[in-house]
């Protein structure tokens, strides 16, 4: 057995901590070599799965590993379930059957002209000043435009304020009042909007319109409509913005990759997958054990939680050659940034579209962008991304 300090660290492992977010190095080497399924006592205790194949096995078994008791560690603490993520059969397929067709590849494709137009306008608008925080002014704005259009909402900075409080505030124990306030604010907003839409009978041909149709048909209840809207907005904003920011950071710090992508735009799709693999926006989500089971030689008890460590699994050397290297020659990239199995991310086609267009337009309009503070800036956490660039568009 190896290093005792490392084994100590493993028993207190926290997947949200800044120092474990990059899933490589001696700690992860030890975990992968000796205990790819291990238990940590953080947040009241949970198991962690970092192996790609084991993660897929767990994610494909919703009977044994359930989501209805919550998928986030630590939980958001808002009492309402995050739907459809925190549901199991028979409810879960009911939500999926409704939502998946609304967010299909074809639906995403129809949005491409809008996504490109918005991306260009945002970037061209920043160009004259020669510098910008591309997190606030671009990475966060593009998903705001897209998810509000898809759902059928007017854009509002308030959505970002609520989302950031709910996602990041939960990592700061002192914020529980702020979290409850944000949740109440967002829920009240949706309840008012939905009430107005029901009464007016106006059909927006958007996701909210389709949810209200389903509600009228008795497929979902009113409170489920609210919960679905709540979750879709948060998920559509935060994860995509994180990935867009990480893409730009990678382009700014890896000139060889940037040049290759500019010379061969067909490679941008592979670049998108490598960004998702290496800089997975969601480090992990959890399941709850429904009945005692064995996993990789470990006895898991009913009620225990199991974290599917997507980011770590994306660096599994058994699944990926040179796992920590961004390689544009990877032709097969079965990363699990979007999860796998019945709960795989519903927004993935939208997310991929936004990422591809974001990278294409940054390369087109700001090909020479450079970080203001390269030594202080990395892909995690998703803070400001100060860059400077020439005031003329690239092409």
């Amino acid at each position, binding site marked *: 057995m190896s290093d005792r300090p490392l084994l100590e660290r493993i028993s207190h492992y926290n997947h949200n901590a800044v120092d474990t977010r990059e899933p490589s190095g001696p700690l992860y080497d030890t975990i992968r070599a000796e205990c790819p399924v291990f238990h940590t006592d953080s947040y009241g205790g949970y198991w962690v799965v970092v192996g790609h194949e084991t993660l897929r096995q767990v994610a494909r078994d919703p009977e044994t590993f359930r989501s209805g008791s919550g998928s986030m560690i630590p939980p958001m603490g808002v009492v309402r379930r995050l739907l459809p993520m925190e549901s199991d059969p028979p409810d879960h397929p009911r939500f999926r059957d409704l939502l998946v*067709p609304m967010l299909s*590849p074809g639906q995403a494709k129809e949005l491409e002209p809008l996504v490109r137009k918005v991306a260009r306008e945002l970037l061209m608008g920043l160009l004259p000043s020669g510098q910008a925080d591309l997190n606030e002014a671009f990475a966060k704005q593009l998903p705001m435009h897209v998810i509000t259009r898809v759902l059928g909402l007017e854009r509002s900075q308030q959505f970002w304020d609520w989302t950031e409080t709910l996602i990041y505030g939960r990592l700061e124990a002192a914020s529980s009042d702020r979290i409850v306030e944000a949740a109440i604010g967002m829920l009240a907003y949706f309840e008012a909007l939905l009430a107005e839409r029901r009464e007016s009978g106006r059909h927006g041909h958007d996701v909210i319109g389709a949810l209200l149709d389903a509600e009228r048909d008795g497929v979902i209840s009113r409170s489920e409509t609210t919960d679905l809207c709540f979750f879709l907005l948060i998920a559509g904003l935060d994860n995509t913005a994180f990935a867009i920011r990480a893409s730009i950071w990678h382009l700014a710090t890896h000139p060889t990759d940037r040049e290759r992508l500019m010379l061969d735009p067909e490679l941008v799709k592979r670049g998108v997958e490598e960004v998702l693999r290496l800089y997975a926006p969601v480090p992990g989500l959890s399941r709850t054990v429904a009945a005692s089971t064995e996993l990789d030689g470990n006895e898991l008890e009913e009620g225990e939680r199991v974290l599917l460590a997507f980011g770590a699994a994306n660096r599994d050397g058994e699944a990926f050659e040179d796992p920590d290297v961004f390689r544009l020659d990877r032709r097969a990239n079965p990363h699990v940034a979007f999860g796998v199995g019945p709960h795989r991310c519903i927004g993935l086609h939208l997310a991929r579209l936004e990422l591809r267009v974001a990278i294409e337009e940054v390369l087109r309009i700001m090909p020479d962008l450079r970080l203001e503070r390269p030594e202080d800036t990395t892909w995690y956490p998703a803070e400001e991304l100060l860059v400077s660039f020439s005031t003329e568009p690239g092409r």
Partner: protein
Amino acid sequence: MKVSVDSDRCTGHARCADACPSVFSSDDNGFTVLLVADVPSADEAAVLDAVAGCPEGAISVSS
């Protein structure tokens, strides 16, 4: 080379349709539809990429 898709495992990532659009297509819900069962030799490499790249491991090939 023959190709098949386990429709119970397919959750509609559509990586295969990206890897080899002449063999794999997506239905309205994003789930995979095979356009052919016998893979043209020109597409064999791309189909093997699709097999390896499917996050669900839902695609198999045999000779």
